[in-house]
């Protein structure tokens, strides 16, 4: 199994979720993060003083899938999350050694 960790633009979340559902992905976990990257925050002015917003809001999606799903998932994310503008984000893949479904105790592929 692999953990696919994608950092995307927040307003793309719904599209990505739908694209993954189309692949019959049954579960995923999302969190709010702040990203620092090539895309720079705007310079803002507050009460006459300028400042740079360094961190931009992003959403992190974590999905654990069977090995044979990895490529399709990456592709689906790429297609649904892309705006072709800087800051679209990344997909990282990590190896997962074990999965357990808490409710049933099922493991690995059965647990996803």
């Amino acid at each position, binding site marked *: 199994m692999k953990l696919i960790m994608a950092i995307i633009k*927040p*307003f793309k979340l719904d599209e990505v979720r739908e694209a993954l559902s189309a692949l019959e992905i049954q579960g995923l976990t999302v969190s*709010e993060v*702040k990203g620092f990257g090539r895309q720079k*925050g*705007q310079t*803002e*002015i*507050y009460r006459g003083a300028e400042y740079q*917003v360094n*961190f931009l*809001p992003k959403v992190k999606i974590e999905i654990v899938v069977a090995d044979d799903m990895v490529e399709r998932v990456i592709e689906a994310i790429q297609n649904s999350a892309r705006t072709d503008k800087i800051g679209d984000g990344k997909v990282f893949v990590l190896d997962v050694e074990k999965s357990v479904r808490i409710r049933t105790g099922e493991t690995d592929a059965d647990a996803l």
Partner: protein
Amino acid sequence: MIRTKTQLALAASAAVIAAAMAEPALAQDAAEAALPVAPETSFIFNSFSFLVHGFLVMWMAAGFAMLEGGLVRGKNTTMQMTKNIALYSISGLMYWVIGYNLMYNGVDGGFFGIPGPWSASDPIVDGAFEGDASGYAAASDWFFQMVFVATAASIVSGTLAERIKLWPFLIFIVCLTGVIYPIQGAWQWGGGWLAEAGFSDFAGSTLVHSVGGWAALAGAILLGARTGKYGADGKVHPIPGANLPLATLGTFILWLGWFGFNGGSQLALGSAADAISIATIYMNTNLAAAAGVVVAILVTQAIYGKVDLTMALNGALGGLVSITAEPLTPSPMMAVLIGGIGGVLVVLTVPLLDKLKIDDVVGAIPVHLVCGVWGTLAVPLTNSGTNFGSQILGIVSIGAFVFVVSFVIWFVLKMAMGIRVSEEEETIGLDKAELGLEAYPEFGRGSQSIL
């Protein structure tokens, strides 16, 4: 202690208590009862009523700001605050520069007065008072009329929230408060043709609330719905407000302010009859609002199987708008009925507007336009000096005028400079996109939340 007049006979005999109360007033000679209120005293009462009730209506500006600020998303809240404090300020300036005189100066059965900056011309210069009992300080009247304009303007900002650009919005407010509102106001309150035609609108269900509603409706049609509100399939996608206690606070503020709105519209406090009228208005205003809330709660429970706080808040306001056209003549029972029907109307027209894909962020059109019409139509039910024909004439003529003129202005603004932010700006939120200033930088998606 005994707290009401109905107990006064008893009080007289309850010597122990009476002594503790020490009411020297009771010692006054019965002969004095004939003494009338001095005209100057009436003048002071009338003026003070305008001021006290006026500051209550001024406070409604804060109520609208909080209500609307609570019902928009967090990413548009700074903008909503900006628009609301700006529109209250613009109203005050425009009504001084041109509006008041356009509305009241020499209308004489016609269509508008002679515009120009207002200044007080009080009858008294110095020495003994020579006015009469119906007099009042000119500036107190100006103040009271001015805060009403701001109310109409606040309605517009609620409907169009979360997508309209700041500057075209403010330009529209300049037109609304300087020209549109005063002209239609002149027809009735300024003593124009509509007043002569027998129309009756005590505190402004039509002249204030539906005016705001029509202007908002015209804008909403031209502006379009918020991105994502209506799905391709015709499905409605609710967009919950970010801060419901703030919206609740706003509603309570408006409710409080409404005692000023309706009570002050008696326009006098210089006689016992005025005091009784104002007291009756307070009671009816409160009963109508309470009925609006309770009915909205019952109806949402019946239809949807659960209570919807935002509908209850709208219900309070619906009840208040409904009673505003005639808060004096209804019996308590009729006030409850009029307000309660307002509550029903709100609960039913909120989803109806969504069916028509008219996106009204805070429910201002159901509350102020629909209930404004209903309240105005209900006047002849309790006020025998009025008739349905004249009421309809007023509703239609003012509605047509305000809607058409507003539509034209919005249209010109749309052509000239655009009235809507780009889809990207809407996604980011107006606060960051237009103002570069977040309302809650440390909460939710705020940029300071991890620092």
